[in-house]
């Protein structure tokens, strides 16, 4: 990175689309979309496994008995909203408003954390009260692998955004870190994309039967 890239930028001082203004930024952008293509395949294999095994519940509860829709609905709303707040963060980044970007990223992280704690609570209830564990049946293994992998992505996304915020707190926005913020927000949207299919395929279709 050059000194030019590290220069802190204020509104009206930089090119539009700061995330793609440097070669490094362009490469990050392309590389990240390539990675998202791979992630799609990863989650597809987990979805495929789940769909194939969801009725193999042995003596454990079936999908219809197990799932409740209230908690899932709240989790869905939280994650959808966090997607919008990260859009707001990127809106302010494009206008070089560093402070507002940080505020919106902070809200995104808080929403992500509340989603995660609800998911932990959900798993705890399944394991402690419903006897639905990773090893109880093929349905259990497939369910926890799919939803757990998504949860692990949420954890990683939270760590990623938080460390970006801490690392760049005093730096302000420049052409070196703008692509980093942009790519992290793409990752956060992708987590939401996967969740849309999880709540439809796992919970809603599980409830329908």
């Amino acid at each position, binding site marked *: 990175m050059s000194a030019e890239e590290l220069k802190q930028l204020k509104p009206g001082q930089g090119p539009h689309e700061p995330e*793609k203004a440097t070669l490094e930024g362009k490469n990050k*952008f*392309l590389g990240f979309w390539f990675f998202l293509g791979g992630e799609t*395949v990863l989650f597809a294999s987990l979805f495929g496994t789940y769909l194939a095994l969801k009725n193999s519940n042995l003596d454990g509860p079936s999908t219809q008995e197990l799932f409740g*829709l209230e908690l899932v609905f709240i989790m869905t709303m939280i994650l959808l909203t966090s997607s919008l707040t990260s859009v707001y963060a990127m*809106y302010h980044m494009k206008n070089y408003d560093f402070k507002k970007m940080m505020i919106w990223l902070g809200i995104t992280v808080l929403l992500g954390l509340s989603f995660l704690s609800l998911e932990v609570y959900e798993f705890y209830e399944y394991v402690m009260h419903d006897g639905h564990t990773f090893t109880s049946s093929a349905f259990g293994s497939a369910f926890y692998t799919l939803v757990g992998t998504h949860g692990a992505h949420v954890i990683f996304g939270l760590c990623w955004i938080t460390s970006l915020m801490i690392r760049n707190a005093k730096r302000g926005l420049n052409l070196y870190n703008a692509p980093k913020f942009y790519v992290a927000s793409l990752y956060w949207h992708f987590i939401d994309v996967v969740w849309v*299919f999880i709540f*439809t395929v796992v919970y*809603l279709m599980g409830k329908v*039967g």
Partner: protein
Amino acid sequence: MEKYAGSTSYEFQKEKNKQDMKFQLVTFACMIVFTLISFGLVIAEFNPMFTIPIILLLACVQVGFQLYYFMHMSHKGHSLPSVFLYSGIFVAFITILAMVTIVWW
């Protein structure tokens, strides 16, 4: 970097970003409505043969919104990202089809 300050292109971009943000708010409202419809259909306990295709369709549309507006795939310079993502979706589709059909037959 002074060349950008106060220039018409800067004002233009700012206005354009604002327009984009408005679209994204509408997108968000649509996504919330789709989610409500999906949950509503399941709670109302319609015929599964009717409910399942519709909630799957709503999920696909919602993901499209997310990709094209929230992740800016509708903007210029996203041809390679589209190639990457659609190749992923293509393989994903075949994977799910293979695993599900193994169980069905």
